[in-house]
């Protein structure tokens, strides 16, 4: 099984995101970026499958500005065998939409045979949650989204999904699209020997034009704004004071 894994470069989850003064987006200049955490989980699962000999090759994919190569190198250090970067100019990177990425993935899969596409369930920057379904639709492959457990089973993948109030176990035939949920696994740290090895692994670079895909934006960002600031709370001395306050505010019946 050859697995193609999407890794998106996003503002690091630990960064306190700030909106640009012109409200067209968030500040990304000089801000720590890393692999989208859900993509990291997807990558880890693919690498684990390879370690279990269930997968033969893991290829990391990223679409975006030149700096995406940093996350691809990290993916290589974490166990991917090679990487493909679909480069777009920095200025256009923020205008990329899930559909564009799905189109690019389709082209890659057409040129080179893959048995599965692993993705994070969503990216933590735009929370679009669309790429997985879109690529499954475009390729007409089965999809197994929000995976919390993956078991290879010959020509199938048995996938457990966390749903409201329980677990849903499905079996999808390969080739298939899989998206990773938070509890699927705990991604490893890249170790130094693997970082060194990653430098020698192949990183292929292509442009959207090379692939012949259309990346015209379909949506326009009107405004990005900060969430309203929460009002500071206050302390009460005891329970009876709390009840009085709640009554005053009309939260409980007088």
């Amino acid at each position, binding site marked *: 099984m050859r697995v193609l894994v999407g890794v998106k470069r996003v503002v690091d989850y630990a960064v306190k995101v700030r909106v640009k003064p012109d409200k067209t987006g968030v500040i990304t200049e000089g801000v720590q970026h890393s692999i989208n955490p859900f993509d990291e989980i997807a990558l880890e699962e693919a690498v684990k499958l390879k370690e279990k000999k269930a997968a033969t090759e893991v290829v990391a994919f990223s679409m975006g500005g030149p700096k995406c190569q940093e996350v691809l190198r990290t993916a290589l250090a974490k166990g991917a065998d090679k990487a493909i970067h679909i480069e777009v100019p920095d200025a256009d990177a923020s205008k990329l939409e899930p559909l564009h990425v799905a189109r690019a993935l389709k082209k890659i899969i057409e040129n080179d045979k893959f048995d599965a596409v692993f993705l994070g369930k969503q990216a933590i920057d735009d929370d679009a949650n669309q790429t997985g379904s879109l690529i499954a639709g475009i390729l007409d492959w089965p999809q197994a989204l929000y995976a919390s457990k993956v078991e290879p089973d010959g020509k199938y993948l048995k996938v457990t999904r966390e749903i409201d109030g329980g677990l849903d176990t499905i079996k999808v035939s390969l080739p298939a699209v899989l998206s990773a949920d938070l509890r699927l696994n705990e991604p490893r*740290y890249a170790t130094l*020997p693997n*970082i060194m090895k990653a430098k020698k692994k192949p990183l292929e670079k292509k442009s959207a034009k090379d692939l012949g895909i259309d990346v015209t934006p379909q949506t326009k960002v009107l405004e990005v704004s900060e969430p309203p600031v929460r009002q500071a709370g206050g302390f009460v001395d005891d329970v009876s004071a709390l009840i009085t306050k709640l009554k005053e505010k009309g939260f409980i019946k007088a």
Partner: protein
Amino acid sequence: MLSRLAPNAAVRSAISGTNAARFASAAAAPSKKDKPASKAVQDSDSFCMNLFRGKAKVEQVFPFPLNLDEERKETLQMILDPTTKFLSEVNDVVKNDENAETPMSVLKQFAELGAFGALVPAEYEGAGMNNTQMARLAEIVGSHDLGLGVIMGAHQSIGYKGILLFGTEEQKKKYLPDLATGRKFAAFCLTEPSTGSDANSVRSTARKSDDGSHYILNANKIYISNGGFADVFTVFAQMPIKQADGTTKNKVTAFIVERGFGGITNGPPEKKMGIKGSNTAVVDFENVKIPKENLLGAEGEGFKIAMNILNNGRFGIPAAMTGAMKHCIKKTIDHVTTREQFGSKLEEYGNVQEKLANMIAKQYACESILYILASNMDRGIQDYQLEAAIAKVFTSECAWFTCDEAIQVHGGMGFMKETGLERVLRDLRIFRIFEGANDIMRIFVGLTGIQHAGKHLQAQAGPSGAFDKVVDPALKKSADALDKCVSLFGRTVQDLLVKHKKGIISRQYEVVRVADAAIDIYAMAATLSRCTQTSKTAGSVADYEKKVANYFCETAAARAEANLKSVAAPNEAIVKTIAEISKGACAAGANPIAHPIDTL
């Protein structure tokens, strides 16, 4: 005429410290070696050495020498990301501090990131970093956990540094792979009960066996970082060495000693004020048989080796300090932008603004000094012992100031453990003491420089205009102030030499002030160099930096001038009074002043 200044001062100023040899008589070692070669006066390209002659020698500072190629930058970034995550998610600094121990499992995981073999070449399983890359790594560690930083530094910056610098190919092959990967840990064993700052005074002994196959070591070493769990020790001991004239003389010799050799015991972890996560212990060596292959360098060369190791590893401290300051500044910014008192956010108050501005300016200067030092080491410059000593003193004191002010700005909250600043303050305290106590470093800087100037007595020219040519136009005023300081410094040192001649050795009042002025002047030069570099590349971001740089230079120039003024002024009365106050108390065995109630 003053060539013996530094060693004399070392002996006179011996004071006890922790963990490593303190007095960086590194300068003394090469100068002694060079002396017989020729009587000719040695010139130096070091900025600080030339400063003592009133000369603005700018090539090692301007242009800003930091220059990491793309590949090194990328490798660094790939190591930094997982390291940062490891430090914030796996390593628990609060627990390490409370339990006074960093778990071995955590160290093993840290080792996988290459953190214990930063400078070791890849052929010995190290990360193959250069000093600049390692400085950046140490900075990140310093901002999270200074105790862990000490474990890391004691291991590689001094513990096995001797093998890296002076080891034979066989020794490197045998030890470095295990040490670089953290499969084994190393410790540096110099300090003894009677040997603190004065490294040449070790009493431990080693002798060769009668058949010449091994050495027998007896040593009692104290305050040894990693001493409780290290497997490989770099140990210094006196050994009888035959001299050319047939007599025998004890000389310090260095050995690589494995715990497995037998006869090695260590005491329980010392209870300390800070860096509690780092293990510090007594290590005793009793009749330890060391195979002759484990001699490090040559017999009798131990002092030189010790000084070189310390000099070479010294930049790790400025790196950790810079990181710790960043942590404190971040906390301060978060606090002053949210905390309200008297109806305004703290950030609105001028006094708070001044504190924050000072913290930022000092951090900027420290970082500039650090990366000039690391980059100069990377480009093969050898003559950096003054710069390294200055970096150690300046950054450890700036970090202390910054953490102290951060706590002050936080008020009562800053005093609480939960805020995460009191631990940093406790951890920081040792950095002014170990690896060359700052007091000894000041004397070392002052006397080494004065000695250099003493060999070059000449009429001082006025300001040279050398900085005007190399700084950004927006920094011209600061450059002129720096130029003025350099020339004033040269004149002051010259007058001092004329006045005291050899007697300058015992004039510590003047020497420490000269050193303080040198520190400020060097910090100004470093700051201006870096800011000039940023303004070439960073566009509008540089405007803020220019303000920071100019502000730092303004305050540093004022301090330097004040220090030089008190050196130049006739201050015999003050020096005499200081001595009398101190002597009076020491003679009485207690402070002789009675309580005011009793004198009523």
